[in-house]
């Protein structure tokens, strides 16, 4: 071997420097491949359409964007058994604080109008946080409010409640987060604080987020999901899933496409979408779909194109 190298060196056809260059080249190529791969692994993975249609992925192996709720500690002794009830709409306070609470509610229900410059799609908070952010099992505001500040693995830091709201605007609303201490932030915080009146701080209340969902018997399937969608969802969300507009505003929200939540949103996680859908959809008929149907239709919804995750830019 060494004689062969010596022969090549003498002929001028081989130089030891080539070894150095070759090793450097391999390291460079490896670096170019591995560094982005590591970055890709760290950020929230998206469901691959091709994967979904050509082979069903075992539900247990699906990578899920983390909503951060798993990080929060549960205190088994202090979780109350009855559902927390927020104050009645008719009991909204008066005065300047009351006005701020009302503004928060207006932003929440008519986001397109009251947060006009901040939204990037056609949604309103109330589309998923039902009953103006009051409904248990539909990510109610009163349950979220008392769980912040909290560490979230989504952005690897301790988040204030305003940080959490900023995420809603950036991802679910595909828009721009309001400035901290802006009127919009104070209004939404006031509304959430008022809804949470009497709720114990730092306690994970029943009804928070969406009810935990088991894995389905079969891996979630886009084709089965399409059939579930046609039979249960299209009547409101349209056969094309792009929602229904009345007088220029979405009466029923789009579930994908440019006017829907982007790929960084919690709802883009099939697990989250399935849990939301199982407990709340069709509207007024929550818990009517089977476990399998909820997972299948969530897989179908989240397999479509939507605006990209802003963190990927």
């Amino acid at each position, binding site marked *: 071997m060494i004689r062969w190298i010596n022969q090549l060196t003498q002929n001028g056809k081989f130089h030891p420097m080539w070894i150095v260059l070759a090793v450097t080249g391999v390291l460079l190529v490896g670096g170019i491949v591995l560094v982005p791969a590591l970055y890709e692994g760290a950020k929230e993975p998206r469901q691959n359409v091709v994967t979904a249609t050509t082979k069903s992925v075992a539900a247990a192996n699906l990578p899920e964007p983390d909503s951060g709720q798993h990080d929060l500690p549960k205190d088994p002794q202090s979780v109350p058994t009855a559902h927390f009830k927020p104050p009645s*709409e008719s009991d909204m306070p008066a005065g300047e604080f009351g006005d701020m609470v009302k503004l928060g509610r207006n932003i929440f229900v008519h986001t397109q109008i009251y947060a006009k410059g901040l939204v990037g799609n056609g949604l309103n908070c109330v589309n998923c946080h*039902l*009953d*103006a952010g*009051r*409904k248990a099992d539909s990510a109610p505001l009163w349950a979220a409010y008392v769980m912040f500040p909290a560490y979230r693995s989504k952005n690897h830091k301790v988040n204030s409640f305003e940080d959490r709201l900023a995420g809603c605007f950036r991802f679910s609303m595909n828009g721009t987060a309001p400035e901290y201490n802006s009127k919009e932030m104070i209004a939404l915080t006031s509304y959430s604080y008022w809804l949470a009146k009497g709720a114990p701080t730092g306690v994970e209340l029943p009804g928070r987020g969406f009810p935990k969902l088991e894995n389905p018997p079969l891996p979630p399937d886009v084709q089965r999901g399409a059939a579930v969608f046609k*039979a*249960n969802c299209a*009547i*409101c969300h349209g056969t094309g899933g792009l929602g*229904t507009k*009345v007088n220029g505003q979405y*009466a*029923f929200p789009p579930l994908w496409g440019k006017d829907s939540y982007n790929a960084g949103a919690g709802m883009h996680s099939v697990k989250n979408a399935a849990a939301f859908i199982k407990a709340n959809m*069709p*509207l*007024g*008929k*929550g818990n*009517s779909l089977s476990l399998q149907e909820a997972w299948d239709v969530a897989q179908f919804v989240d397999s479509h194109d939507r605006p990209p995750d802003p963190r990927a830019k």
Partner: protein
Amino acid sequence: MNFSHHTSVEIILTLLVAGQASLSHADAQAGAAIAKNGTGAGSACMQCHGANGEGQAAAGFPRLAGQNRDYLVKQLTDFKAKLRTNPLMGPIASALSTTQMKDVADYYAGLPAWKPELNAAPSTAQTARGAQLAHQGNWDEGMPACFTCHGESGAGIAPHFPSIAGQNSVYIANQLKNWQTGARLNDPQGLMKAVADKLSAEDISAVSAYLENPK
């Protein structure tokens, strides 16, 4: 006069468009004739639904004027197919062809929709409860607001969700009770059955009263 090739094309196109326009106009016109005179096989619509499609409040015959066209066609089709049963509407719908159903639906959909009354009676505790159900729902029971599906002011959302604002209260109350008992079964996906099952008798009275003149 020098008629160029272009002018002849324009004349033909204009005639075609005018022809099309007059054809669609004929749908509503044919519908108006059916509404006024019937088809010879059944009563005329106006006899029960009023000269202007306003319905008959006391008898519970619904307002049709300004109603969602596709919804009207579906109801007539369902009456004929016995998917929705009513002793009066069954024979009447059975006598209509599909074209006649579309014509009469066109006619009624094109009539002026309901507008809020200017000097309506002041709201009562009952209509306040009705307003709450219409605008917020009753989520303690898992019931969405009526207006979430029926439109922000109850004007309906085409093609599936009919207008309910300005509908007469006897008719609304009857429908809600019929969904509860199963006397009416043609609601898509059982959506109205799910809603009706969450309404108490007082709620039905409240929401029907409110919807007759919602604000």
